[in-house]
């Protein structure tokens, strides 16, 4: 009798310790720190500097969420994940959210039990080759050796594309982007394939970027976005609307510089709602009125973040393209703040 009571307690204690919690917001607040899954290192997207401080386009999303939830953009623990480990890290509760060049696909959203909360970069898969190879189109890659990160959509797209084009290739499986760079630079593969943004970033980190070209073919749609665990709607809402706040801020011309002033004097009620000067949108998600202001305050709106991390003025030099606001011919379109 006594023994079984003891075992019962043990079981319950163990369960409480080992369970993935459904209330991520409470966990993050209690911990005082946001665990954010990022890539192991991709210039412009997520990369630690010499002092171990992370920065980049994906990192900015994590920081914005931390600022919105915890009021402090530095309270983030960045967890580097590879293509293979990222979803397990999220599912197991090791990280609260992923901001890691992850493509929103049907099976990831459903079968893998993730929730993609939006798209922070509209991308597509491309190929990079050395210029002296004399290749100008991906269709000329018959028989080539191609480096590819495992556990990605990239490897599936590649298989499909070569099959539909009736071409042969030899895949070289690699684990991280750094390994891919090294293999490609050593000539162990003729071409390196991944998301075009990743290629631009990889090329920018080479000593001789001018000797490499990105082929014109874009063989897939890769909407990259932050993801959270399926089943915690409140947390998903928070991350989703933090991203939307950054995008909407750009649309309405709200920047980190003019934010305070607009909150006080903007004639646009939508801007006032976004910045918490009117209504209490933040409270509806379980945060406070000023959450979006804090998020935008970290590194500015979507456009400012883009320009500072991966934009045309940076070595990566990505044009806005599809990632321009819908008013500028792009696909970015934040739902109304109302």
């Amino acid at each position: 009798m006594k023994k079984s009571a003891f075992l019962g307690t043990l079981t319950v204690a163990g369960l409480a310790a080992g369970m993935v919690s459904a209330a991520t917001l409470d966990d993050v607040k209690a911990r005082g720190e946001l665990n954010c899954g990022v890539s192991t290192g991709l210039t412009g997207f997520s990369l630690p500097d010499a002092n171990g401080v992370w920065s980049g386009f994906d990192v900015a999303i994590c920081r914005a969420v931390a600022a919105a939830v915890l009021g402090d953009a530095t309270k983030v623990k960045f967890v580097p994940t590879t293509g293979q480990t990222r979803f397990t890290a999220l599912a197991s509760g090791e990280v609260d959210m992923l901001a890691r060049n992850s493509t929103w696909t049907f099976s990831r959203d459903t079968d893998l039990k993730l929730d993609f909360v939006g798209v922070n970069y509209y991308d597509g898969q491309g190929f990079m080759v050395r210029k002296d190879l004399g290749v100008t189109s991906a269709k000329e890659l018959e028989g080539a050796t191609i480096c590819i990160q495992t556990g990605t959509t990239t490897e599936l797209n590649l298989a499909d594309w070569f099959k539909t084009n009736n071409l042969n290739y030899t895949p070289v499986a690699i684990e991280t982007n750094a390994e891919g760079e090294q293999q490609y630079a050593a000539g162990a593969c003729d071409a390196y394939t991944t998301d075009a943004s990743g290629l631009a970033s990889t090329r920018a980190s080479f000593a001789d970027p001018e000797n490499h070209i990105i082929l014109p073919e874009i063989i897939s749609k890769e909407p990259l976005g932050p993801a959270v665990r399926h089943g915690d709607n409140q947390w998903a809402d928070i991350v989703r609307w933090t991203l939307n706040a950054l995008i909407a801020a750009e649309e309405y011309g709200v920047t980190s510089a003019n934010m305070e002033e607009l909150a006080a004097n903007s004639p646009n009620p939508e801007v006032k709602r976004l910045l918490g000067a009117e209504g209490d949108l933040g409270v509806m998600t379980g945060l406070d009125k000023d959450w979006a202001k804090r998020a935008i305050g970290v590194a500015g709106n979507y456009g400012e973040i883009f320009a500072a991390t991966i934009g045309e003025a940076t070595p990566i030099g990505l044009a806005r393209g599809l990632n321009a606001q819908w008013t500028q011919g792009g696909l970015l379109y934040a739902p109304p703040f109302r």
Partner: protein
Amino acid sequence: MANVADVPKPSFRLSMLLYDTRYRSLTIQIVVFLLVMAGAAWLVDNTIRNLQALGKDFNFSFLGARAGYDISQRLVEYTNDSTHGRALLIGLLNTLLVAFLGCIAATVIGVLVGVLRLSKNWLIARLMTVYVEIFRNIPLLLWILLIYAVFTEAAPAPNAFRVNAETGEAATSMFLDAFAVTNRYTAIPNPVFGLDLGWLNIGLFYVSVDFLLLVAAIVVGFFLNRMALRRATRIQEATGDRPTTWWQSLLLLVGIPVAALIAMGFHFEFPELKGFNFTGGLNVSNSFMALWLALSLYTGAFIAEIVRAGVLAISKGQSEAAFALGLRPARTMNLVILPQALRVIIPPLISQYLNLTKNSSLAIAVGYLDLRGTLGGITLNQTGRELECVLLMMLIYLTISLIISGLMNVYNASVKLKER
């Protein structure tokens, strides 16, 4: 007399479970058993609840779904349209291939080095000591990465073998026009049968009929040779003279398979640079080479120590007796020492084979798609079936290990001291 009955019969008290040595060990065992079971139950229960919380179920139907990814080294046919189950098979065969070749190479290295380390030649003995100590004391993963890096960084790209149209020369040329070590793979000649007798479906995959005939020829030669040797022994026992058999053996063991090969038009196709890569020959990937070499050299160092210990375990009197009989050192080693040393060597050797096989799962470090890379890597990741994949992988490794140790135990039984 009457008081005897008054002595109280020791009745059983609960405290005796703890203080009475007759019961104590039983009590401890039961408690430990219950704790272990409770631990296991907790793990299972926790898993089930967590799966429920994530909304995931537990089933293996994903093995029948289309894999969608390509694997460069495949011993049997596979395309990205094949199933995840098929990808598992490809990975398993890759694991078995590197483990099998690794065990062979490690044994050869180990026996050579182990014996040479006992050599009276100071230089050779020291060199072997250096080899053993270096390989034993540096983690295997580093060796794999190092050898891989040497291949990819130091070897020329396939492009370097291209003949420049103007100068008529290439930066690098092939070895004997048949081998090319590149920074991607080593291109070697591909053995082919000119006479294609078709392929036989043996359930999981197809086997070349030519290949089966070759195996049959080798087996037949082997048995005929055994018959010839028995006959020689009979004659020896009857007359005291042993007829010379070496030419018969040669004919049977080598002649028959060679005749079969010639009949089936066996020849080599040589690698040739076409487009980006060598084609025609066999391209043995650097990831395989690095893994295989590192596993063999690393495990070989351990086996060398086992062999040395086995040889040293045989008392000096044995070799002295052999020398007294006039046996030369090499024959003493082969006929007297090694057969006895094997009894000491085999059991730890089994563990080394098992280690090598399990260590082969480090393949992921160089992108060699073994079982860990296919089932435990890409399939796991693309389907999100972590638990199923890992359990299945553990089961498969366990099975392989049990089979290896079973086979080795059979061999051990055949060499161990037979007491009459």
